[in-house]
């Protein structure tokens, strides 16, 4: 211990961290991030509230709210799959024509011609199934936690509509490969719309752009799938998350908050006695 004169002082920061410090402290660095390396609470706070992407978070979060077994991060995972779907979806749009029978040939091209095309389609497909399942599970988790209680009632209602829009997105995407699975899967669903009393045929015609699933339907579903529904869902998710934040973050049942509060108080009091 006594060999180094400065051993009781703060150890020198490694080279790469000093480089990061210098970049962050430079004029360009400060114009982009506006805070230093987040190793002080001041910089950590600045990192959150001066950053567009992190501003959905408060500077401090409850330890209880972060526990994996409380939420299984289902809402966040739904958002992640949605982000993956937008990314892979945009790439797939580069290769896809919403016309008959070109749409199906594009599937074959993705499989045999495009580099990693099959992987791209697989990732989009499995992420879509995962998103539907995750949104369902998220709703179930929120229900059993009772997290729809005031003041969160309307955010639950928004959530129900986000679930419906997720299903509609998945359903409109289901038709796009234009294979037998797509065609008949969508036909079964749209046949049900026909049984709506009074307006059944009109609704069906509006959805299909005709009297049965055909090239017109493909264009309608394509536009809904790639433009209309994602925009609605992005907006809905923004409102949904914003309201969670405004209502004080993730819902923690009052009895558990009291328990955590009491534990914190006892800790603080015993600390004071020692001092």
């Amino acid at each position, binding site marked *: 211990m006594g060999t180094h004169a400065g051993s009781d002082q703060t150890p020198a920061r490694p080279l790469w961290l000093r480089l990061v410090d210098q970049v962050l402290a430079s004029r360009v660095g400060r114009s982009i991030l506006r805070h230093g390396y987040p190793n002080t609470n001041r910089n*950590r706070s600045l990192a*959150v509230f001066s950053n567009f992407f*992190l501003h959905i*978070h408060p*500077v*401090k*979060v*409850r*330890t209880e709210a*972060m526990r994996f077994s409380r939420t299984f*991060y289902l809402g966040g*995972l739904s958002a*992640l*799959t949605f982000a*993956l779907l937008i990314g892979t979806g945009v790439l797939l749009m580069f290769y896809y024509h919403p016309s*008959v*029978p070109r749409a199906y040939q594009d599937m074959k091209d993705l499989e045999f011609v495009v580099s990693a095309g*099959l*992987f791209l389609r*697989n*990732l989009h*497909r*499995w*992420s879509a199934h995962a998103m539907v399942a995750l949104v*369902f599970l998220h709703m*179930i988790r929120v229900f*059993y936690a*009772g997290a*729809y209680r*005031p003041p*969160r*009632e309307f955010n*639950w*209602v928004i959530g*129900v509509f986000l679930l419906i829009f997720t299903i509609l997105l998945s*359903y409109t995407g289901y038709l796009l490969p*234009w*294979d*037998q*699975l*797509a*065609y*008949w*899967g969508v036909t*079964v*669903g749209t046949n*049900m*719309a*026909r*049984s*709506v*009393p009074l307006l059944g045929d009109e609704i069906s015609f509006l959805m299909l752009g005709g009297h049965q699933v*055909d090239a017109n339907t493909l264009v309608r579903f394509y536009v809904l799938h790639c433009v209309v529904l994602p925009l609605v869902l992005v907006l809905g998710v923004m409102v949904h998350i914003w309201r969670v934040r405004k209502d004080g973050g993730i819902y923690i049942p*009052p009895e558990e*908050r*009291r328990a*955590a*509060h009491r534990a*914190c*108080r006892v800790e603080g009091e015993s600390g004071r006695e020692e001092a």
Partner: protein
Amino acid sequence: MSASDFEIVAGDDARKDPVRVVLVQEDERPVVDLHEDPMVMTVPHLMVREVITIIAASLFLVLVSILFDAPLEELADPQRTPNPAKAPWYFLGLQELLHYYPPLISGVILPGVVIGALVVVPYFEINLKREPLWTHGRERKLLSIAVATVLVSIFFYVSAPHPVWPIIGPTLFCGGLMMLPGIVGTESRLMDWFARRSLAFWIFTWFLITAVILTVIGVYFRGPGWEFTLPWRDGVY
């Protein structure tokens, strides 16, 4: 709580030093003291968790996409209907109901009722309170649950050409579990737990079990002509 537990000190100038009095009841603390919950900095504690979750979940989906290919059948042919023609998995519960009810009921009314019920969930006093079922009125509650269970079961027994067992089963199951603490008492921890569930809990659980059973039957146990098949014998259609 006695008056000696707290002390109210008012300054000379009440306008300058206002004193706020809060009545603290034993089990209903007001929101004022909740900011003392244990907290940590978002950066790095929450950020690290988020980054790990994003990487792990993305990696999982990438692996699945490498190992399993998305299905692609032959070119769509409006002249050739596959048997069975199945909707995507999340609609197969509804499609399974088509086996029992006309499309107006299984495709329009029932989904409408379910969505409507989900939307109004937070606006029902009965859900908000989450009052335990067995606090008072044991005899009357037992009777009303038994009558409701039997009536719902009879309805789903006679209303379709064949009894709707995927709904009758969960109805009897949930009704039975609801009544159990009222019959055998709440001495055991499990019975106590059942007894403290709310009506909303039971209705949602009933809906969930029904939806899962219908979907599993639709996905795995239906073959050509929507006949019952066994997936391990005939494969999955």
